[in-house]
């Protein structure tokens, strides 16, 4: 095994069938041929062919939703491919479950730490592979061994400490040490520096280079161009689930990579009509709250205001703050010229703000309840006469939205969980159409939605604008906000860092502002 610290004895049985020693340096260790993943009609990863060479650091870049996480999940056996072949050291393999991936030496360090916060650092490093003596855990031996590994890696971390007492960045280092310790031959880092300080990043980079020196193949996924250029030998670009190219790092530059990450398919399904812009509906001045700072912007009737940024840039937090879900700390909100305070969701709704939130599953829908109930949820007070709900109006309202939005269901009594992503999004939208609003906030409305439904959603935007509403469109998909928004604001690290008019600035400019190269 090539791992740095092969203190584990785990893969003894399973490993017998697996090539013990990987291929020589520079030869293909993992080869993907036409690897594809479909969720129903949605193609999350279009047939991709990619080769990873033994001992290289291979960066993967792409916008949110480009298919990076799908690729990682396929490689680590979390999900199963729809079609295509995978070759490990020249042998075809299934990678049908995480155990198989780990047994072959494929490991991943995730952006969000997936360890047990209540256990000690050492216990986490040995989790599932504890040293024992006739069934009794050798706690002291494990702590000592873990400490030796940490020291050797140059991480100044106490092995006996509880994991949750460390910062997220330190926990990330523990996760890396854990993977390094386990005879890993192929290690995937998914945006590992997102929560790390500069110093911690430097430690991590040293570790990555050291692993590379030991012959471990590294896949490094990041938004940060400077890291890609600092670390990687080669870089592959994903766009809309397509692998659009692989370059040697010495033969490319950021401009080329950013150009590869961008495309223009959106024009084919959306035709923007210019509508007269009306009066200002909403204005914020210096709005500050959890996750966003000093945001000043306005929305007028008949326009789409786009908010672009990477995930975690503060756009959704701003939306939740505006909607009264999270308390705003300072700043002012003006609604149709009058200063207002929005302290809870009801107040926002009563003013005329609707929010189709980021996560349909967690925030948008009551999944194990019928479609009809979901659609009617914001308007039950209007459907009530006396003490009871007017059944006729309840049914009519749900059926009308189902019909108007072409939600594909035989009846309103089907549970929302049974619907596809696109139809679920329509249910969330239907809820707000029946309620009505002056300002619609759509947070990532087309994630996991097929092209046909996307086009329908865009047409719906046009209809709302014609009726004199304003729209805030939050999207991590640049072509979408770029083509749809009359004004586009770029968020980075909780701040509004740049603004453009309709199609102002190039894709390259906008992406560069969002990434902050």
């Amino acid at each position, binding site marked *: 095994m090539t791992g740095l610290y092969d203190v584990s004895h785990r893969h003894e049985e399973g490993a017998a069938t697996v090539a013990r020693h990987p291929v020589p340096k520079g030869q293909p260790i993992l080869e993907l041929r036409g690897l594809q993943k479909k969720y*129903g009609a949605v193609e999350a990863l279009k047939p991709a062919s990619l080769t990873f060479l033994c001992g290289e650091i291979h960066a993967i870049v792409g916008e949110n939703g480009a298919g990076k996480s799908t690729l990682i999940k396929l490689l680590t056996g979390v999900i199963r491919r729809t079609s295509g072949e995978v070759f490990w050291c020249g042998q075809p393999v299934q990678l049908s479950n995480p155990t198989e991936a780990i047994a072959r030496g494929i490991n991943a360090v995730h952006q969000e730490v997936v360890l047990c916060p209540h256990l000690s650092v050492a216990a986490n490093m040995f989790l599932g592979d504890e040293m024992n003596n006739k069934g009794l855990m050798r706690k002291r031996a494990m702590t000592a061994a873990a400490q030796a590994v940490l020291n050797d890696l140059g991480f100044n971390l106490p092995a006996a400490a509880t994991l949750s007492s460390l910062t997220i960045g330190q926990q990330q280092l523990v996760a890396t040490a854990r993977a390094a310790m386990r005879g890993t031959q192929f290690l995937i880092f998914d945006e590992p520096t997102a929560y790390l300080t500069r110093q911690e990043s430097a430690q991590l980079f040293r570790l990555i280079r050291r692993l590379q020196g030991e012959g471990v193949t590294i896949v490094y996924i990041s938004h940060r161009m400077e890291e890609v250029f600092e670390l990687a030998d080669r870089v592959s670009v994903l766009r809309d689930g397509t692998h659009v190219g692989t370059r040697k790092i010495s033969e490319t530059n950021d401009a080329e990579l950013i150009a590869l990450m961008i495309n223009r398919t959106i024009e084919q399904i959306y035709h923007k009509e210019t509508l007269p812009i009306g009066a200002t509906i909403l204005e914020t001045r210096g709005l500050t709250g959890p996750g966003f700072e000093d945001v000043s912007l306005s929305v007028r009737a008949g326009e789409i205001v786009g908010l672009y940024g990477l995930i975690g840039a503060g756009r959704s937090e701003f939306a939740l703050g505006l909607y009264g879900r999270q308390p705003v700390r300072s700043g002012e909100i003006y609604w149709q010229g009058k200063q207002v305070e929005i302290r809870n969701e009801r107040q926002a709704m009563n003013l005329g703000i609707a929010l189709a*939130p980021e996560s349909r599953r967690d925030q948008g829908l009551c999944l*194990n*309840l019928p479609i009809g109930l979901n659609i009617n949820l914001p308007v039950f007070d209007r459907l009530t006469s006396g003490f009871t709900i007017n059944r006729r109006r309840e049914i009519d309202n749900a059926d009308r939205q189902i019909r108007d939005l072409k939600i594909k269901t035989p009846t309103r009594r089907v549970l929302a969980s049974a619907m*596809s992503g696109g139809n679920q999004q329509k249910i969330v939208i239907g809820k707000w159409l029946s309620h009505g609003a002056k300002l619609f906030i759509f947070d990532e409305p087309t994630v996991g939605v097929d092209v046909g439904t996307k086009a329908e959603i865009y047409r719906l935007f046009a209809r709302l604008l014609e009726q004199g509403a304003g729209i805030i469109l939050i999207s991590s998909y640049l072509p979408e906000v770029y083509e749809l928004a009359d004004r586009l604001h770029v968020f980075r690290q909780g701040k509004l860092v740049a603004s453009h008019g309709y199609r102002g600035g190039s894709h390259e400019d906008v992406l560069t502002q969002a990434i902050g190269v």
Partner: protein
Amino acid sequence: MTVEATTEAAPVPKRGMNILFGLTLLGLLLFLWLVLGFATNSFWTPNNISNLLRQGAMTAILAVGQTFVIITAGIDLSVGAVVGFASVAVAWLLAAGVPLWLAMIITLLIGVLIGAFHAFGIVRMGLPAFIITLATLTSLRGIGLLITNGSTISITNEAFTNFSRADFLGVPSLFWMVIVVAIPAYVFLHLSRWGRYLFAVGSNSEAARLSGVNVNRTIYVAYILSSTCAAFVGLLLASRIGIGNATQAEGWELQAIASSVIGGTSLFGAVGSVQGPLLGAFILATINNGANLLNVNSFWQRIITGALIIVIVYFDQLRRRGSR
């Protein structure tokens, strides 16, 4: 996991299944009655039927209140203790010379307060429902024992104690109380928007909140209803046994939860009805009653009840999985 496939396989109207499940339970109840009618001479006697209806009535009312809470994905472990405490409260008030109507209203208000306290603990203090209601379970028994100094308070008000023995149209008045509770409960849960909100909060409280549902208020409503139902049962119990005693109704919370679950309520929230727990309560009462008539050791009754819960909920799970 193909999205398309689930879209086509899914369309099973939920209401139809609920009615079917209700019928299955009703079928089970009638089946038990038939079998007991054949197996014993005394089952179908007016005396025994009245007795059965009285036995089931109190659990049924508790189960309906409990169901409101379980639908919000919560649990109320305190109801048995509230019953005992309410019996002490009404007995103490009557002994102190408070007029009957006022004593009853005050007792019900105590139920409201206990429920509000539970919701306060959950909403404001962030305590799990299991913990806060477990805490009141033991505290209320303690307070009741302190008030009575560990003994019982006799109730001398005849109008009050006669009520539980009385019949109306040949049906025990205690059973009428089930109807008095069940009809408004049905209207509330199935016909009013409040009921919809209970389901929405139990399914996904964040989605409900973002849709303008006042989640906190909904939780208050659920727990207040549960405790008030329990206080009401406390009045009925005091009337039936003629005393106030803090240790009465031991373990009734489990009876109530069992009835609710047998009646199709999901402990994960967002699934439940009013008719289900009523049937569940009378199924349990029938089993106990039948076991008594058949001279089955009362220890066995507990074992049978436990086994029944497992069997019914297991079949319910199968049904749900089948419909997905």
